[in-house]
C-alpha cells in the first residue's frame, strides 16, 4: 500500500521535469536526425517528402580538413586547460578556508561574465593597435606589423581562456577529496615534489581529470563564435559550418546532418566513459 503510494507520488513529482526535458531536449535531438533526411526548401525550412541527398552532400571531402581542425583544436584546448587547471586545483584544495573561497570566487567570476564580452576583451587586447601587440612590439618581442588577431593561435588562446573554469571546477572538486597526507608519505619515501605530484596526486584525482577533459573537449567541439570572431578565414571549425548552413545558406537539412554527426561524436565517447566508470565503481564497491 505504502510502496504503491510512493510509486505514484514519484511519478507525479518526476513528471514536470521529465516532460519538459522529453519535449524540449530529447525530441528536438531526435528531430535533428530526422531533418537530415528531409529536403530543404528555399525559405530555410524543410520541404515535403524524404531524401538521402543531404547525406551524399556531407560526404564532401572539403569537410575532412575542417573535421580534423575541429578535433585537434579541441584536443589542444583540452591539453592546455588541464595543464593549467591541475596546479590551480592543487593549490586551491590546499589553501586555507579564506583564500580558498576567494580563489573559487575569482575563478567563477570570469566564467559568469558574458561570453561575448570575454571574446571582445581578447579581441581588443590582441588588436593591432591594442595594448598587448603594442607592448610586445616595443619590447622587440614581436616584429613590426605583427598581427596576433585572426590566427589559429588566437583561436586556441581564447578557447583555453573561456573553457578554463570548466576544467578547474571539476578538478578542484576531486582535489578537495584527495588525501594530501599521501603526498607527504611519498616524499618521506624519497619522491621529489614533482614526482609526488605526477605519480600520487594526478592518479588520485583521475575521476575529476576525466570529467574535466570530457567537459572541455566536448564544449570545444561545438565552438563557432570564437573561430568566427578571433580566427582567420582558414580557421573554420565544424560549428562554424553548421552556423553558416543555417544562417547564410538557409539549408536546415544540411546543417542538421552536420549537427547529427557532431551529436554522435559527442554522445558516443561519453557513453563509453559512463559505462567504464560504472564498471570501475562496481569493482571498487
Amino acid at each position: 500500500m505504502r510502496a504503491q503510494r510512493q510509486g505514484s507520488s514519484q511519478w507525479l513529482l518526476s513528471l514536470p521535469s521529465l516532460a519538459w526535458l522529453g519535449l524540449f531536449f530529447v525530441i528536438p535531438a531526435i528531430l535533428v536526425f530526422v531533418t537530415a533526411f528531409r529536403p530543404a526548401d528555399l525559405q530555410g525550412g524543410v520541404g515535403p517528402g524524404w531524401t538521402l541527398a543531404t547525406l551524399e552532400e556531407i560526404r564532401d571531402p572539403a569537410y575532412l580538413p575542417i573535421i580534423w581542425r575541429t578535433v585537434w583544436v579541441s584536443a589542444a584546448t583540452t591539453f592546455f586547460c588541464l595543464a593549467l587547471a591541475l596546479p590551480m586545483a592543487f593549490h586551491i584544495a590546499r589553501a586555507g578556508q579564506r583564500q580558498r573561497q576567494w580563489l573559487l570566487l575569482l575563478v567563477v567570476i570570469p566564467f559568469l561574465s558574458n561570453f561575448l564580452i570575454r571574446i571582445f576583451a581578447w579581441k581588443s587586447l590582441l588588436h593591432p593597435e591594442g595594448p598587448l601587440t603594442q607592448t610586445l612590439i616595443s619590447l622587440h618581442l614581436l616584429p613590426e606589423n605583427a598581427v596576433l588577431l585572426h590566427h589559429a593561435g588566437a583561436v586556441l588562446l581564447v578557447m583555453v581562456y573561456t573553457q578554463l573554469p570548466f576544467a578547474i571546477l571539476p578538478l578542484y572538486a576531486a582535489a578537495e577529496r584527495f588525501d594530501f597526507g599521501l603526498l607527504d608519505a611519498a616524499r618521506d619515501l624519497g619522491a621529489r615534489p614533482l614526482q609526488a605530484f605526477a605519480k600520487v596526486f594526478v592518479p588520485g584525482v583521475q575521476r575529476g581529470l576525466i570529467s574535466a577533459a570530457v567537459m572541455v573537449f566536448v564544449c570545444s567541439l561545438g565552438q563557432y563564435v570564437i573561430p568566427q570572431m578571433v580566427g582567420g578565414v582558414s580557421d573554420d571549425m565544424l560549428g562554424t559550418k553548421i552556423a553558416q548552413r543555417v544562417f547564410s545558406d538557409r539549408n536546415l537539412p544540411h546543417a542538421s546532418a552536420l549537427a547529427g554527426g557532431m551529436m554522435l561524436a559527442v554522445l558516443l565517447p561519453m557513453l563509453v566513459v559512463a559505462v567504464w566508470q560504472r564498471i570501475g565503481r562496481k569493482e571498487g564497491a
Partner: protein
Amino acid sequence: MRRSRLPALLAWGVVLFLFAPLVVLVVNSFNASRFGGTWEGFTWGWYEKLWAADEVWASLWLTLRIAVSAALAAMVLGTLAAYVLHRFRSWLQNVHQVLITLPLVMPDILMGMSLLALFVLSGVETGLLTIWIAHVTFCLSFVTMVVLGRLQDFDFTLLDAAQDLGATRAQAVRKVLLPLLLPGVLAGGLLAFTLSVDDYVITFFVSGPGTTTLPLRVASMMRTSRTLPVINALSTLLIASTFVIAAVSSRLQRRA
C-alpha cells in the same frame, strides 16, 4: 615539510590570465582613445554614449524579462527534479538523472540547432516564447545540480521530527524543508538568471525578428566598429553586476 611555491605561483598566474582581459576592458571604458592602445586621458564619454543608446536599454529590458521568467520556471522544475532524484532510487530516476545531466555537457550549438529543428518542424514562429523555452531548458539542469548539492546536506530526520510533533506532511515540507532549502533554490535561480542573461549561441538560433537580447545586441555592435568603446562601457557595467551576483550567491551557499 617545506611546501613548493610553484603551485601557488602558477595559481595566481592563472588568476592573472583570467582577469587581465577584463581589467583592460574596464580601463579602456574610461580611455578617451578609440582603440585603447594608449592612454589618452580620462573620459566619461563612452558611458554618456551608452546612456543615449536606447536600443541597448530596450535589449537589456527584454533580456531581464526573459531571464527572470526563465529562472523562475527553472527554479520550480529544478527543485522538484532535485527532490525526486534525491528521494527515490529507481530505474525512472536513473533515466531522469541522465536527462538532467546531458544538457550540461551538450555543446550549445547542438542544443540551439535541435530546438530550431523542433520549432521549424512544428511550425512555431521563433520569438520571445521560443527563447524562453530554450532558456528554461538549459537552466533546468543547473538549478537541479545546485539544489541537489544542498539536499545532500539536508537532514531528513527533521521532517520525521516535525511530523512526530504533530505537523502534517504538507506542513512539514512547507515549514521545515522549504525554508532550509531556500538558499540553495535561490542560488540555483541566480545561476539560471546569470546563464540566461549571458547566453548568446542558443538564443541566436531560436530568436526571431524583434527579439534582440543583450548578447545579440553586443554581437551586432561588435560587427560595426564605430561603437566599439561603448561596448567597453557596457561590459564594465555587466562585469560589475556579475561581481555583485557572484558575491550574493556565494553568501547564500555559505549560509548552511
